[in-house]
């Protein structure tokens, strides 16, 4: 039986929105609405969907950056080899938990402190978690810089982020994340700000590191082509809900949910001869159907391929 690195069950994250005179009108935005998934050790899951569908909110809840409203998140404990429910952890355990779960952000220009040197930036998590002696930490920084391809490390350590290019900065972000030797890394569109040619080298770097260091990724992106390159499985999110989840190739070949079909049909193909299939989707109708059937009922249609039925199987598919 394969172990999972993370198991998420019925995760919900609601935001209260105040509006109107003296903020008296209160309403609730269900940014993440009852989603469940699991990621086996060493595998990667792609989370795709439109802007504003709740991808980043999911990521932030998993990393405990925003407390979740409801639901259960279980995480693999590297010492006991058991799944720990993060609600049952005390302060010290939580700190350990955070070592194992890290995040790479979208914008390499804004996620690095401009007044710190590269060495300080990568050293910070080691200092916070008090890992090894000062010398060990410096060695660790050198080692990880070499791993992410910033060689010789001595050249990069005293530099500031503004002296590096976008691709190099994203390598520093990756180094800062992986210096903790995490088991699980949440990547929030780490390559969307980069140029095509540099994008592939960063993606290849992440894939290689995943293999060498046995890291699992939750890879957030709106580009299915990128998700295909990076992930074993893909989950499609729409308005805070996961509507379809399957093995990458299976999902691309046999999309079932109308939103997945729309998403796939909207990706431009780098071949002038290729005619994309048109697929129009009535968003309002889909939205109404989902609102009227809030129960998420993921049905296995075979081959580890799950879809949300919204209780209206016939008219939807």
């Amino acid at each position, binding site marked *: 039986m394969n172990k999972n690195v993370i198991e998420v069950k019925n995760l919900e994250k609601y935001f209260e929105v105040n509006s109107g005179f003296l903020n008296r009108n209160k309403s609730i935005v269900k940014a993440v609405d009852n989603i469940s998934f699991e990621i086996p050790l060493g595998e990667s899951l792609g989370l795709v969907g*439109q*802007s504003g569908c709740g991808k980043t909110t999911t990521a932030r809840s998993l990393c405990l950056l925003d407390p979740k409203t409801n639901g259960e998140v279980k995480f693999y404990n590297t010492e006991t080899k058991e799944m720990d429910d993060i609600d049952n952890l005390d302060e010290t355990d939580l700190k350990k938990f955070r070592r194992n779960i890290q995040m790479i952000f979208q914008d390499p220009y804004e996620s690095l402190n401009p007044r710190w040197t590269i060495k300080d930036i990568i050293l910070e998590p080691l200092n916070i978690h008090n890992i090894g002696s000062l010398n060990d930490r410096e060695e660790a920084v050198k080692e990880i810089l070499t791993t992410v391809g910033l060689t010789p490390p001595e050249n990069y350590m005293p530099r500031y982020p503004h002296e590096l*290019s976008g691709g190099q900065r994203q390598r520093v972000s990756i180094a800062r994340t992986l210096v903790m030797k995490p088991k699980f890394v949440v990547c929030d569109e780490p390559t969307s700000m980069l*140029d*095509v*040619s*540099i*994008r*592939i*080298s960063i*993606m*290849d770097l992440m894939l290689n590191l995943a293999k060498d260091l046995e890291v699992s990724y939750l890879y957030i992106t*709106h*580009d*299915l*082509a*990128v998700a*295909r*390159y990076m992930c074993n499985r893909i989950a499609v999110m729409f308005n805070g809900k996961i509507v379809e989840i399957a093995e990458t*190739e299976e999902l*691309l070949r046999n999309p079932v949910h109308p939103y997945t079909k*729309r*998403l*796939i*049909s*909207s*990706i*431009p*193909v*780098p*071949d*002038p*001869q*290729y005619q*994309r299939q048109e697929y129009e989707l009535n968003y309002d109708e889909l939205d109404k159907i989902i609102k009227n059937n809030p129960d998420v009922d993921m049905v296995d249609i075979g081959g580890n391929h799950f879809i949300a039925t919204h209780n209206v199987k016939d008219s939807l598919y």
Partner: protein
Amino acid sequence: MSKDVLVVKNLNMHYETLAGDVHAVKNVSFSVKEGESFGLVGESGCGKTSVAMSLLQLQADNAKISSGSIVLDGQEMVGLTESELRKVRWDGISIVFQGAMNAWNPVVKIGEQIREAIREHYPNNSKDENTEKIKKLFDIVGLDHSNMNRFPHELSGGMKQRAVIALALSCDPKVVIADEPTTALDVVIQDQILKEIKKVQDLLGLSLIYISHDIAVIAEMTDQMAVMYAGSIVEIGPTDQVFSNPKHAYTKLLLESTPSVVGEKKKLRSLDGEPPSLIDEVAGCSFAPRCPDRDTSCNPTLDMELIESSSGHFVDICCSEGK
């Protein structure tokens, strides 16, 4: 055979900076026919936007067109005075800017901003005529008329981009430059905007210059394309041919580094190193230092020159067969 609307010949443009002259556009030549769409692709900093800005002569103050000619519909554009240029801009050639989010004045209603452009070029139109015109433009780009009286912040990203397209069409230009019109948008919205641009182009018979770093979008949108690297065009030809039979090492690399959702999943190639600084004059092939396909038959010191490899398909001498 349709005629050329825009002919650019040996265009050179540089920015004067304290560190020296930055040669952003080097010897760029291309032409765009009536109703044709022409794609310009390359990585950031390769000079795509500098070419666009030179066409409109909207460059920064420190930018100088040192030589070359831009002929729009028979009229030479280089050397025109500012007041002459103001007549040509928008009337003859207009642009859809990159950031739809920042292209609007936040405190003026969308309709008013489009009206301002029309009034500048057709001062004799009545207010009602202009309103009718704007309504017609909104119909073309698929926006509801009520959006005329909205402020930019009340529109979503996709709607703002549609309004920017309406603005670019407001004075019936012959050539429209689309400078990465969809990079800030979501895939589904991008798809809608691309379809809209295509529809508008067919409807009005426009010539389109489409600038993007995404080769997949170029494949869908354009008839002719040019690949730019470090300020120069390294390959130019019919889009079908460039894709099916790429000649230049850089073009091949671009094609092989783009992931796709269809076809077999294949290993993608990455490109190491960084583009050269545009301050130093590099003699010969500017791609040579990063080129993965270099071999003994390469002679990167040859001055850059486009050689015709098959009809209408030109490639830099360094990667042409007759090198």
